[in-house]
């Protein structure tokens, strides 16, 4: 994230990706255009959390996500969205960046909004009429070498798909009778919380789209797109652009957008099934 390249280095990277024929373009790490970096995944490796994942990327970036579940009493004054915002707590920390960093806040918000928007209208986190599960999702990124949102979203997806919740054994209707919910001593059940994954797509010219760009590609790209994808071949909003350099950044042809969607739809399911 703090690698500085010289102008010569940058123009070398840029040139190798902006050839006339697309078949002549080469990525600096030898990947295919729609190939993600190799991942190593260790699901559920922390046993005092409800769910956890450790993902190690090829470039050395390591993401550790832990999810802890707590019981929270609903505040009846809040509407659904406000309640969900309180139920989902994301804490992202990257040791190299300080807490008030804008990029950090942007990533935190993006992940939170993705989860909250998927949970709206469902009652997956509801325990009884008065109580809900509160999720604390802590994300730790070590050795961060490039923009890590793509990797983080994969780790969060994998964590939320393996998070185990306590099983309720008391009644679930407590509007009339005042009682604190009771849980089974050791039995846990899986509640699948839908969570979209985010693809970072770098745009070079009108034709070339690169999935999961490395730092040198981010520094030389025309523009980058953040595209959310959820299971069953669906690209969902919000979709936004993001820039990481001043030198090469420029607008892009709107036709590229539909190409990018097709690209993400074609690889999305494969990526999800790999996790």
């Amino acid at each position, binding site marked *: 994230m703090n*690698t500085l390249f010289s102008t010569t280095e940058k123009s070398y990277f840029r040139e190798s990706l902006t050839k006339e024929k697309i078949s002549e373009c080469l990525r600096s790490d030898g990947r295919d255009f729609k190939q993600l970096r190799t991942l190593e995944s260790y699901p559920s490796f*922390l*046993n*005092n*959390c409800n769910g956890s994942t450790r993902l190690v990327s*090829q470039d050395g970036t390591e993401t550790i996500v832990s999810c802890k579940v707590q019981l929270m009493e609903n505040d009846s004054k809040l509407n659904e969205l406000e309640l969900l915002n309180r139920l989902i707590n994301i804490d992202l920390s990257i*040791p190299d960046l300080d*807490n008030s960093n804008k990029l950090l806040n942007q990533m935190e918000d993006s992940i939170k909004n993705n989860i909250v928007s998927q949970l709206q209208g469902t009652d997956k986190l509801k325990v009884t009429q008065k109580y809900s599960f509160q999720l604390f999702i802590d994300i730790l990124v*070590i050795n961060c070498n490039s923009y890590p949102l793509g990797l983080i979203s994969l780790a969060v997806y994998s964590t939320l798909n393996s998070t185990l919740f306590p099983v309720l054994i008391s009644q679930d209707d407590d509007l009339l009778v005042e009682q604190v919910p009771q849980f089974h001593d050791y039995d846990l059940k899986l509640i699948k919380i839908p969570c979209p994954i985010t693809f970072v797509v770098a745009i070079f010219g009108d034709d070339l789209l690169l999935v999961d760009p490395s*730092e040198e590609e981010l520094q030389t790209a025309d523009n980058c797109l953040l595209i959310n994808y959820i299971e069953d071949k669906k690209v969902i909003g919000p979709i936004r652009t993001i820039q990481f350099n001043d030198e090469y950044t420029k607008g892009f042809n709107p036709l590229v957008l539909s190409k990018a969607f097709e690209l993400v739809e074609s690889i999305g399911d494969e990526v999800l099934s790999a996790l």
Partner: protein
Amino acid sequence: MSRFEFYNNDGLRIDGRRSNELKNFESSITTTSNFANFSRNTSTNTTYLQMGQNKVLVTINGPKEPTNRTKIDSNKATLSTNINISKFSKVNRNTNKSNLPDKQTLEWEYEITQLFSTIVVLETYPKSTISINVTVLQQDGGVLSAIINCITIALINNSIQIYDIITAVSIGIVDQKHFLLDLNHLEEQFLSSGTIATVGGGDQVSLLRIRDKFPLDLIEEFMQVGLQGCSVLKEIITKQVKDMNLNKLVEIQ
């Protein structure tokens, strides 16, 4: 008296170990630069140590040129340690809003820096810094000893010259007569305990840390048990590092 029976008549502890039995010790290394990444030197190794239920990750940056010119020492390298104890490392999540380290962590950072400054051959790397980043993912008892052991392994894995291996182990005392090696979190909570680190598994104690009230007439035996544990641990570490690096060699070829 606490309500737990830490050491029963059969000579077994709460988790079924004997008094002088170490916890499961498993270390591994993640090497990620499996192809030449020419733009950047990302030969980052992450060393992961699992000591019982302690899970510690150590990455070492350097030796490299310091970013801050004032930190340059023209004769030797400067060592810095940064410990990050993650919020989810205990059973109950730490609700502290700020990410600033607490006092104990700062103390550990200082102690570890002092400890390893004498062990790393700093004269080999003049005008450079070596920064050690520790992440504690899960805490059981004896986190400090796990951190020290993991840093030792990480230094070896990163090919940084050291004089000898440092091993550390925690010891607790039950009923003024039994000594328990390598505590778990329950034992650490209720017993008077301490941590010993030795150089090369020999009888040179390089760090001693005793918490709470401690019967001083027992200290001799306490040290004996600790030294014994450290020398066993040294053999385990030597073996694991050898195996790990053999595997690495096979992967490269």
